[in-house]
């Protein structure tokens, strides 16, 4: 078995409630309509653009706006900045340069019998450009906000139009000190789904931006053919801004009032080092609290879900990857959960209790992506108070601990085994021959031990009778030598008696010596 600890490779926190200018209003609106949010997009129904040089700019919708639609009116003036008013409409932004230009925007919720004609009131009669747009869908539930207030930009050919995390919005620029010849709107940071130009003159431009969805730092830029001083503004329906707050980290959760640290958080772990053939026996996610502040929901569990099938965009993207609706979260597999009210201290790491499903949701051989959300984000049943958590915004502060086996070549081994089985019919013959040889060899040590034991006893004993027989044969064959040789060699007194009829023959040159007390008795003849 092996224990692999894999630190996070990237993470992303998205705060769907946080607006750019008026986050509290946006948060409360989204909170009230949470279950319908995202499933109902902001949709543009129609728009009308008109130009003129009278005191009161006016434009007419091609049809009666639907009851509840959000109506936006952008007024761009190229020779004056005196106050513009619109009865029954709410001003979102209005600014300009004295006697030169004005950029103003208003909005209104359409009534049951909304007039098609829209009129603004100015103090003086000068050239104007007016665009009116009707938005439905999510726009019928949420009010538009000023994303970037009308502001003066010094003479330049490059005018930034910030649009952080915008579902849909309208941007506009206006100049009054000579035309810019051309004005081209394009994305410089982030990725926009579409840019629609409503009005395009050499002094005024009004366009729609849709799809700043996942970009925390989305930016469009007007490029002018001639450097001009301008006023620019952006309004719309923001969402999907970053839930990052410096020192606080990424936030997650829902609140009716606190909009700075809400949302959901995605984590990415490179689990490609865990081979697909391995068996994972344990998996644990450890998360670190924020560096300087720690919040934890008192009435919500903090739950972890598998979103491995969806890459978490590190940078701007039009694809919504992290923020999920209650229905979408319910469809995910929950892999870990930490109870409501658990201890949570700044700058401290906590292991999230794993669900049984975690081990099968490790994306072995690839990337494991997890979503952090609260119980009410899953159920859509709201607590009524702020239920949020913040975690360190450094991906490497969070890690996965995975215990797995190391049989990295199991498939290869299986293939080899199959091949061996197919050769079995031929192997038995080979093995049989080898077995015989091997068996003989294997007995050699056995004999050696037996012989060694016998050397001490049996072989010696078995040869004794053999020697005895040799001696006996020799004695039997040459008895005279024994009888003759021994007495003389020892040189002890001996008596040689020759019984009757014995003959002692002394052959040629033989000598018979009788020494000492020797007696030669010869029978009487």
């Amino acid at each position, binding site marked *: *078995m*092996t*224990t*692999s*600890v*894999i*630190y*996070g*490779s990237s993470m992303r926190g998205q705060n769907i409630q946080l607006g750019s200018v008026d986050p509290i209003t946006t948060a409360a609106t989204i909170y009230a309509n949470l279950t319908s949010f995202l499933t109902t997009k902001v949709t543009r129904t129609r728009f009308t653009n008109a130009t003129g040089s009278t005191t009161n700019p006016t434009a007419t919708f091609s049809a009666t706006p639907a009851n509840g639609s959000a109506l936006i009116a952008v007024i761009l003036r190229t020779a004056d900045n005196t106050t513009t008013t619109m009865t029954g409409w709410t001003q979102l932004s209005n600014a300009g340069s004295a006697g030169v230009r004005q950029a103003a925007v208003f909005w209104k919720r359409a009534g049951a019998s909304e007039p098609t004609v829209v009129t603004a009131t100015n103090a003086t009669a000068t050239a104007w450009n007016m665009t009116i747009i009707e938005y439905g869908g999510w726009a019928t539930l949420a009010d538009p906000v000023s994303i970037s207030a009308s502001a003066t930009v010094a003479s330049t050919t490059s005018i930034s139009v910030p649009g952080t995390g915008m579902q849909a919005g309208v941007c506009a620029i206006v100049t009054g000190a000579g035309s810019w010849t051309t004005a081209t709107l394009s994305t410089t940071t982030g990725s926009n789904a579409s840019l629609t130009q409503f009005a395009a003159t050499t002094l005024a431009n009004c366009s729609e931006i849709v799809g700043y969805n996942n970009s925390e730092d989305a930016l469009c830029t007007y490029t002018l053919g001639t450097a001009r001083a301008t006023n620019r503004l952006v309004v719309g329906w923001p969402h999907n801004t970053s839930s990052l707050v*410096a*020192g606080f980290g990424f936030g997650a959760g829902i609140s009716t009032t606190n909009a700075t640290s809400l949302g959901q958080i995605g984590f990415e772990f*490179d689990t490609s*080092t865990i081979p697909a053939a391995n068996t994972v026996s*344990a998996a*644990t996610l*450890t998360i*670190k609290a924020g*560096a*300087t502040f720690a919040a934890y929901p008192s009435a919500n569990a903090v739950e972890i879900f598998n979103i491995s099938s969806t890459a978490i965009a590190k940078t701007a993207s039009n694809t919504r990857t992290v923020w999920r609706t209650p229905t979408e979260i319910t469809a995910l597999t929950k892999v870990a959960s930490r109870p409501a009210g658990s201890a949570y*201290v*700044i*700058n*401290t*790491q906590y*292991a999230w209790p794993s669900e049984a499903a975690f081990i099968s949701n490790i994306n072995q051989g690839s990337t494991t992506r997890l979503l952090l959300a609260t119980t009410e984000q899953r159920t859509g049943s709201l607590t009524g108070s702020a239920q949020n958590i913040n975690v*360190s915004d450094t991906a*490497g*502060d969070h*890690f996965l*601990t995975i*215990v797995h086996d190391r049989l990295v070549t199991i498939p290869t081994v299986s293939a080899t085994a199959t091949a061996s089985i197919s050769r079995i019919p031929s192997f038995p013959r080979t093995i049989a021959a080898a077995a015989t040889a091997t068996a003989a060899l294997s007995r050699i040590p056995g004999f050696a031990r037996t012989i060694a034991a016998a050397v001490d006893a049996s072989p010696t004993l078995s040869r004794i009778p053999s020697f005895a027989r040799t001696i006996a044969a020799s004695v039997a064959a040459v008895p005279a030598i024994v009888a003759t040789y021994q007495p003389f060699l020892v040189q002890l007194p001996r008596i040689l008696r020759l019984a009757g009829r014995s003959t002692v023959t002394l052959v040629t040159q033989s000598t018979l010596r009788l020494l000492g007390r020797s007696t030669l008795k010869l029978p009487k003849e």
Partner: protein
Amino acid sequence: MTALDDWWAVEADQSLTDSEKQALFNDIRATAFLAVQLPFYVDALQITRIEVAGNRVDVSGVGDFSWPLRIYNGPVGVTDPDGNVTKADGSTWYSDPIEVIAQCIRSA
């Protein structure tokens, strides 16, 4: 300068690409982990061997644990309320690879 200081300096260097940062992180990690005196103990476990290869630190030891311990993209210190190094975001850290190993072991 601790290894963590070196690490954060690389982290904050906007002129480096991600791959360049990763290479420098690997160097810092190798220097820090290979300087650890062996053996040492984490609770009842004896750590006997450390090897570093790229972004991976292999740790072997003796005791009841699913060896080896393999740490991927690990830091060279751990966050600690009483740590001896303070990061720019205000968090406090303990600059010691041994603590990283101990934390990983205790998380298993």
